[in-house]
């Protein structure tokens, strides 16, 4: 069964090729069938492989499939090879399964769109690239997938390219993540020059053997990989692209900018955990970046009034939690939160998509309101998603994973009280903004009429993801609940076990009670804030000049302004100044010369037959004279 591994990425790639070649000759039905069907089949194969992997684990708890040698030059011979261990199994299944649900949803969501085929073409390419990323056996192949998903992200953010603003948003996402990608590729150069291979397992073994903990080269390598992860996962300071990435269609936001691509950074760090263990300072930086980002994003989310931007900031903040977990060596906890987050955040985005479609493309939450009865499916899906996001105790999957991260941030050997407090504060803010969203969108008075109701292809993914958002967390229950944790046992075959402080307060039921309480208090606060004082809401919405702090948070703490003034304007200025350098006249000189030559030769072609004959006669005379008189 495991031999079928290559089929998993090959199916969406084949879907991409077919859609690319037959582009205009396909009916919408055929496009939908190929686009969603290829990912669906891929999901089936992935699940079969996962079942086979779990029931009869391969020797060494990892399976390696070599397809062919990519190229062989200068001692570098990367192979097109896939590596399957517990972690890549989790990523593969989540990507294909959630990916399929989102594709199914898109067949209805995008049905009136002009670029229907183009959309599925890009989406299939994205899924294939993402699978290559998480299955890659060497870092170069991983980098191929990494760039592939980045390109698809760009293409899909700018999907509605007739509005130039969307194109700018796509460009911004591409350029900002490029900063991180450059760090990543430099990191690969460093690893290759030092350890002479890019194959992940030998590379990690070599690093552990040759490098001392805290040595300069280990720190440099880990820091460069972190740079790549920060860019892709929209963490501080490269986070500015993610809110603008919401310019793309909603299924794109659900798949790429919530469930899968933005967690590639988490995958990269977990995959190269040996390097990060060798560089404790960098790991501390990961934890701090995660904590600061999650708080930053929570505050920003509180002030947004575009439904998708709220969700974008919440994605940023949940990935902050994952980074926090990675930083304190809670590798498995981060992967667990990746999985639950993929379920509930995809659910939230898809539900938001239903609302946006129903209201004819309205994004402003203050123009929604009162949709509880009109869109019951979206309402219940959104409630479940928001509850999961807020980690409401016991009945949501977000509780189990986020609670685990909060526990780990204190109870792990590398954890400390500051990180724990940050995580708790983030949890409080998360439940406030999540339920603020629920109350503003679904309660109160209706502002905009509902023009469109979702049909089964949009409802089914919502139902499936709702169920998963409830039961998805039961695979790893905390110690005080009896310690049922097959997910952890499974991941432990691939990732190091987190070292914990024995008898830490973090792992007691009291701490869990505290985290639960905080989530509930957050919901209560949101209720008090918005539902019980409609007048305040009205004032809040109608205020002509918003409060300074609110504006500050709305604009993401002025990072865009800062980067505009520190990077964009100086670079543009320099480009303008540098236009007149020495190279410029050389090239324009060549162009000028060509232009003059064209003018002269063009004048000779005057269309006058008699002139041609005259010239030909003179030429003939000259040739004859030359031959005769020589």
């Amino acid at each position, binding site marked *: 069964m495991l031999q079928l591994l290559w089929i998993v990425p090959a199916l969406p790639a084949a879907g991409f090729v077919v859609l690319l070649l037959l582009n205009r000759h396909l009916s919408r039905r055929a496009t939908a069938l190929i686009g969603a069907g290829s990912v669906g089949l891929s999901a089936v194969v992935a699940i079969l492989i996962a079942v086979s992997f779990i029931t009869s684990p391969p020797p060494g708890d990892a399976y390696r499939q070599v397809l062919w040698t990519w190229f062989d030059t200068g001692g570098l011979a990367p192979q097109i090879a896939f590596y399957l261990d517990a972690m890549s199994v989790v990523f593969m299944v989540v990507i294909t399964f959630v990916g399929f649900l989102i594709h199914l949803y898109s067949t209805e969501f995008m049905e009136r769109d002009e670029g229907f085929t183009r959309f599925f073409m890009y989406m299939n390419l994205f899924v294939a690239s993402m699978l290559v990323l998480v299955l890659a056996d060497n870092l170069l192949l991983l980098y191929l997938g990494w760039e592939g998903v980045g390109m698809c992200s760009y293409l899909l953010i700018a999907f509605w390219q007739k509005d130039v603003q969307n194109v700018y948003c796509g460009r911004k996402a591409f350029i900002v993540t490029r900063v991180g990608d450059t760090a990543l590729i430099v990191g690969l150069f460093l690893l290759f020059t030092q350890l002479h291979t890019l194959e992940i397992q030998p590379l990690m073994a070599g690093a552990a053997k040759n490098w001392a903990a805290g040595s300069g080269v280990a720190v440099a390598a880990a820091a460069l990989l972190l740079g790549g992860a920060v860019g892709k996962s929209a963490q501080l300071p490269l986070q500015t692209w993610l809110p603008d990435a919401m310019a793309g269609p909603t299924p794109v936001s659900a798949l790429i900018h919530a469930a899968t691509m933005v967690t590639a950074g988490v995958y990269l760090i977990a995959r190269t955990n040996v390097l990060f263990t060798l560089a404790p300072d960098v790991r501390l930086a990961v934890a701090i970046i995660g904590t600061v980002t999650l708080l930053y994003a929570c505050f920003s989310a509180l002030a947004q009034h575009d439904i998708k931007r709220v969700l974008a900031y919440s994605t940023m903040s949940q990935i902050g939690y994952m980074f926090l977990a990675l930083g304190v060596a809670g590798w498995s906890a981060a992967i667990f939160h990746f999985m639950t987050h993929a379920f509930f955040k995809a659910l939230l985005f898809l539900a938001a998509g239903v609302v946006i479609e129903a209201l004819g493309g309205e994004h402003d939450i203050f123009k929604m309101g009162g949709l509880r009865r009109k869109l019951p499916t979206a309402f219940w899906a959104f409630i479940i998603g928001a509850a999961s996001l807020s980690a409401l105790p016991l009945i949501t999957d977000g509780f189990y994973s986020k609670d685990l991260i909060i526990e780990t941030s204190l109870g792990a050997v590398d954890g400390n009280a500051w990180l724990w407090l940050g995580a708790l504060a983030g949890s409080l803010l998360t439940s406030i903004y999540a339920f603020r969203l629920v109350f503003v969108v679904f309660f109160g008075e209706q502002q905009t009429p509902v023009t469109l109701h979702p049909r089964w292809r949009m409802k089914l993914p919502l139902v499936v993801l709702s169920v998963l958002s409830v039961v998805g967390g039961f695979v790893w229950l905390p110690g005080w609940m009896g310690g049922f944790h097959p997910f952890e046992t499974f991941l432990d075959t691939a990732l190091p076990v987190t070292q914990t402080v024995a008898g830490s307060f973090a792992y007691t039921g009291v701490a869990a009670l505290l985290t639960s309480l905080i989530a509930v208090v957050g919901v209560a606060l949101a209720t008090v804030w918005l539902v019980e004082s409609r007048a305040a809401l009205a004032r809040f919405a109608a205020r002509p000049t918003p409060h300074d702090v609110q504006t500050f948070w709305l604009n993401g703490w002025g990072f865009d302004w800062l980067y505009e003034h520190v990077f964009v304007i100086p670079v543009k200025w320099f480009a303008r100044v540098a236009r007149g350098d020495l190279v410029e006249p050389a090239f324009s000189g060549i162009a000028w010369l060509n232009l003059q030559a064209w003018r002269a030769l063009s004048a000779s072609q005057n*269309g006058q037959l008699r002139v041609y004959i*005259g010239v030909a006669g003179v030429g003939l005379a000259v040739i004859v004279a030359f031959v005769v008189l020589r």
Partner: protein
Amino acid sequence: MAAVSLDHGLILAAILFVIGFVGLLTRRNLIVALACIEIMLNAAGLAFVVAGARWGSADGQVMFLFVLAMAAAEVAVGLALAIRFRQSLGRLDVDDADEMKG
């Protein structure tokens, strides 16, 4: 009958050729241009015949027959072109046909 010397024959051919060529350069009427081409062709044919006579060979006269055949074909095509030219431009001025200028 005294044979025409080679020099005289070639000089006559050259004069005929230059007359045809100058006519082609100076006259704008398409029919006249075609006539000038005929004169030039006959100049070439005369050169063949004179040269053949000088060396006592029939080749020159054979070549002249070829030139005649070609001239007949050229006139057929040329006159057909002239008719089309006249139909599309309304005149027979070769200078009007300058639409292909660069």
